[in-house]
């Protein structure tokens, strides 16, 4: 945590945005470690994949379009802002004073809804990973909402910079653009990434279909899957990798993923349950739950992977 604080301070001080992006990646990685220490493996996995992995790549591709040096604004009101931040921080700390002590077995969160999840999800949902049964079934509607947030973000990127704009287009090839050029020449990188990409994709599939037994699920899998393609695009060529997944296909998958998730919900509704009731999908409750969770996780994976690929390529195309 000390390292996190130091990194946070460095991020605020540093003027070189390239360095800032790297530091935020490090920050995410450290918080992932922290989550592992706190026994929240699923969260750690997501943080490592999303925060340290894909977010860094996306920020780098943004830097490729803009500049990597921050302009120091002259007319800011730093004292004002600093005061506000200090007050907010103080209030937060004040609020934590009455928090139940760390690791307290008698804290309210362990005694209200959690016991039922732990004790009965085995019979009611029937899969070993309780986190997955909460995310995909008990609170499946929230997860549907989260997938829609990602869907919205991808559509937003398409809407704002996805279409060829009238008038002058920015044709800046800045730092990262040139660096990529260097990377493409490097034999070691080319060979290693060629070797790695199949494994990345296989690992993504493992995470996707194994999410009900171990940590993982559609979110992480989608991000890992997308990162395989993005790696290829970074090392080799944007256009070639675009040929493997044309924009029409990613757009279709983007929509199909959320439709699959919501569709499973509607099927539950048609078969006599409420929206997102998976129990009615099969004769036996746990079989139905299992099937439902697999399907919605697949929907999540599809949309997340398609969204990441869409966002990355939309940024990458701006360069040309």
């Amino acid at each position, binding site marked *: 945590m000390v390292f996190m604080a130091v990194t946070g301070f460095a991020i605020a001080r540093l003027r070189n945005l390239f360095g800032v992006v790297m530091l935020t990646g490090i920050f995410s990685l450290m918080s992932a470690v922290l989550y592992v220490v706190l026994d929240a493996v699923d969260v750690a996995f997501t943080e490592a994949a999303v925060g340290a992995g894909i977010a860094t790549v996306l920020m780098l591709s943004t830097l490729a379009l803009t500049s990597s040096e921050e302009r120091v604004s002259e007319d800011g009101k730093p004292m004002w802002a600093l005061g506000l931040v200090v007050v907010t921080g103080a*209030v*937060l700390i*004040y*609020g*934590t*004073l*009455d*928090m*139940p002590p760390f690791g307290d077995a008698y*804290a*309210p*969160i*362990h*005694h*209200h*809804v*959690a016991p*039922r*999840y732990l004790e009965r999800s085995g019979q009611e949902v029937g899969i070993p990973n309780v986190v997955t049964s909460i995310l995909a*079934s*008990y*609170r*499946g*509607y*929230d997860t*549907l*909402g*989260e997938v*829609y*947030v990602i*869907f*919205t*973000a991808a*559509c*937003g990127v398409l*809407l*704002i910079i*996805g*279409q060829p704009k*009238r008038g002058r287009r920015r044709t800046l090839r800045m730092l990262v653009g040139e660096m990529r050029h260097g990377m493409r020449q490097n034999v070691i990188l080319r060979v290693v990434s060629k070797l790695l990409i199949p494994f990345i994709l296989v690992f993504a599939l493992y995470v996707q279909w194994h999410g009900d037994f171990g940590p993982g699920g559609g979110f992480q899998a989608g991000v890992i899957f997308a990162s395989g393609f993005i790696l290829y695009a970074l090392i080799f060529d944007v256009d070639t990798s675009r040929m493997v997944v044309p924009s029409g296909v990613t*757009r*279709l998958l*983007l*929509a*199909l993923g*959320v*439709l699959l998730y*919501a*569709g499973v*919900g*509607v099927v*539950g*509704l048609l078969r006599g*349950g*409420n*929206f*997102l*009731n*998976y*129990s009615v999908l099969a004769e036996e409750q746990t079989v139905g739950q299992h099937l439902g969770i697999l399907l919605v996780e697949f929907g999540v994976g599809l949309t997340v992977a398609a969204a990441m690929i869409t966002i990355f390529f939309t940024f990458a195309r701006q360069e040309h």
Partner: protein
Amino acid sequence: MAAHYPALQVVLALLAAPVCLILRRPNAAWAVATVITWISLALALSLLGRVWETGVILYPMGDWAAPWGIEYQIDTVNAFMLVIVTLIGSVVMPFARASVEAEIEEERIYLFYCMYLLNLAGLLGIAITGDVFNLFVFLEISSLSSYVMISLGRDKRALTAAYRYLVMGTIGATFYLIGVGMMYMMTGTLNMADLATILPAVADSRTVMVALGFLTVGLGLKLALFPLHLWLPNAYAYAPSAVTVFLAATGTKVAVYAFIRIFFTVFGGVEIFTAGVIPEILAVLAALAMIGASAVAIYQTDVKRLLAYSSIAQIGYMVLGISMVTVTGLAGTIVHLFNHAIMKGGLFMAMGCILFKIGSVQLDQFEGLGKRMPVTMAAFVAGGFSLIGVPLTVGFVSKWYLVQAALEKGWWLAVAVILVSSLMAVIYIWRVVEVAYFRPPPKGSAEVSEAPLSMLVPLWILIGASYYFGIDATRTLDIAFAAAESLFGGPL
């Protein structure tokens, strides 16, 4: 099937958004969005009818009983909000067709309707849910889509406005989430009704107090409570017309609803709101908004911006009603949610018509508009009367009940503030009217050229409604009073 209306209310729009993405045709996307909005309106009306007759409707998602699963809990307040959002959407959609075609490039239009549907689903999801975390998820959907829609304005400044809104909105959402996290830490639940029963026991802890503070500031940012309103004027002024109409009439209203829900339902059993400084603080901020924003509105030269500042003042009225913590005050706020939605929607539609024909809403472009666009300007004047609060308009109804509530409390100063702010509304509306009717049209301008009927009819529907519900306000008032009483009735 009727049992599933609560789910369908939100899910239909959610399903339609990816369909628009697949269709990729502007007209098809528009048709899908329109039909879905109209069906949603029908669902909302039927839900309101059912709540009115049989009381609260519960709908557990996935058949997992609350508090383990997520549950929709629909009472009069929720149902009324659903009707407001879908009603405005239903009137905006026919209007949007021509307006969007004129303001957004053709190849982006299908994505625009996809965004609109997501925004609609997000707002409905906030209004209908009985779970504080679920509310956050849908808040994110609606916020993200509104940032995107605002950035599509023709003016380059729309991008900066959207970015500013994004930063402020994200801070608001994060604050809300911190508040929710702290409440969860102290209670172990996310369900609103469940929270309301558990919170009083732990209400003395600092954590819960701080949670309330974060929730207040977070939602205050979203509803543009003075002095957290800075994102609003530019966002409304530079967004595409149809977006401004929809967001101005629904976006902040839903945030006001969330505010009411957190204060009166989730914290309903806690004394902090009835005895404490929070009502006083809210009342002072509301009064500052009403006077300050109206004063700024007087000096605007962009009429859309002028109306945006007037919105901040109107939000002040709503917060003033909340801060009284009486049934009459709260009913005044709830009825004003509806009334302001229809009249501001109408006024911004008039702006849309003018932008469509003239290409600008700068005040100096309004010269002679009374003759050149008589139908639109007549609607503007009629809507302006309502904004001022002339009798027979909805604006009068809301103000009447707010004044009455203030008198009940003996808040003479609040009555004075309402009157002064109304007088200021007379000034800023008059400025526009003067330019439009008493200055000759610039030389060489076209004679009479009106916006197409597809824009004028929705405009007059909203303006007409603001008189219809002003003359016969029993229906809206009954609902508002029933809603306010149910909010004071403690937990659901």
